[in-house]
């Protein structure tokens, strides 16, 4: 199928449960994911959204699959740029696998749109989010630059 896909793999010295929690829970995401919060009751079919620190809904969708601490998949529509909103819903999937003392985290973000602007944009964002997550879990100290919302966005 014609589409656009971004895949990123990282290995984190942590436990499956901690990595899974850190991907969803506000007390973690606020510290490494530009100060954002995700709101959902995290059951299949439930609404899901990302909110900026000043309370704007930035992305929304629904939970497609949740199998703690191994897999989480959500639909994802961006709401802050009309061209990206018009592309409709993308799919984000996290897969976690234990490998000795590390967790292999594979992120796949894809959409059935060729040369997608949304996937182009998230391709530059995800490496920073994943780097911030790994640093927070391994050192206990967030990357300061990634714990704040970018000015003017």
């Amino acid at each position, binding site marked *: 199928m014609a589409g656009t896909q971004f895949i*990123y*793999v*990282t*290995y*984190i*010295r942590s436990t499956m449960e901690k990595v899974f929690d850190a991907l969803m829970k506000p007390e973690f995401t606020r510290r490494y994911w530009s100060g954002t919060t995700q709101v959902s009751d995290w059951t299949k079919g439930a609404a899901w959204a990302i909110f900026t620190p000043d309370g704007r809904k930035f992305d929304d969708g629904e939970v497609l699959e949740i199998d703690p601490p191994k897999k989480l998949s959500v639909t994802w529509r961006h709401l802050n740029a009309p061209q990206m909103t018009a592309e409709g819903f993308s799919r984000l999937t996290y897969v976690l696998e234990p*490998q*000795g*003392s*590390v967790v292999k985290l594979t992120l796949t973000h894809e959409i059935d749109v060729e040369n997608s602007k949304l996937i182009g944009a998230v391709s*530059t964002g995800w*490496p*920073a989010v*994943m*780097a*911030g997550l*790994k*640093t927070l879990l*391994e*050192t206990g100290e967030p*990357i*300061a*630059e*990634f714990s704040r919302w970018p000015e003017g966005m």
Partner: protein
Amino acid sequence: MAMASSSFVYVTYIRAPQRKVWDALTKPEFQKQYWFGMHQQTDWKPGSPWKLLFEDGRVADMGEVLEFDAPNRLAIKWRNEIRPDFKEEGFTRCVMSLENDGELTRLTIDHSIDREGAKIITEGISNGWPKILSSLKSMLETGSALARFKA
């Protein structure tokens, strides 16, 4: 696109000075800690031979230094010597770019070959770099590389 090619691009941010990231990428005493016990052998002069060696001295990969601009940019002509199907695909090109970003260093790996659907990219390089770079980041930020990716 002008030419059929395959590439793997990976970006990460490391909380360490650019010079330290550069040294960790280019000096054997650091490489051995995070790169499956392997290290590189070269004098880093453009045109010089370059090798990636296993702990026991066998050659895993070989090639040539294409560019060396410390601590910003490094390019290597790079061929796998272990798997016949990878070796048959010929030389790849790996470019490492470092940029200072406040307390962080932004590291970009762009590893490519002028061949469509190359197995060296889809089966080799795209599996290896996330492990090596995750381990490098752990080493620089916590003082120890990921045990799984040591020798």
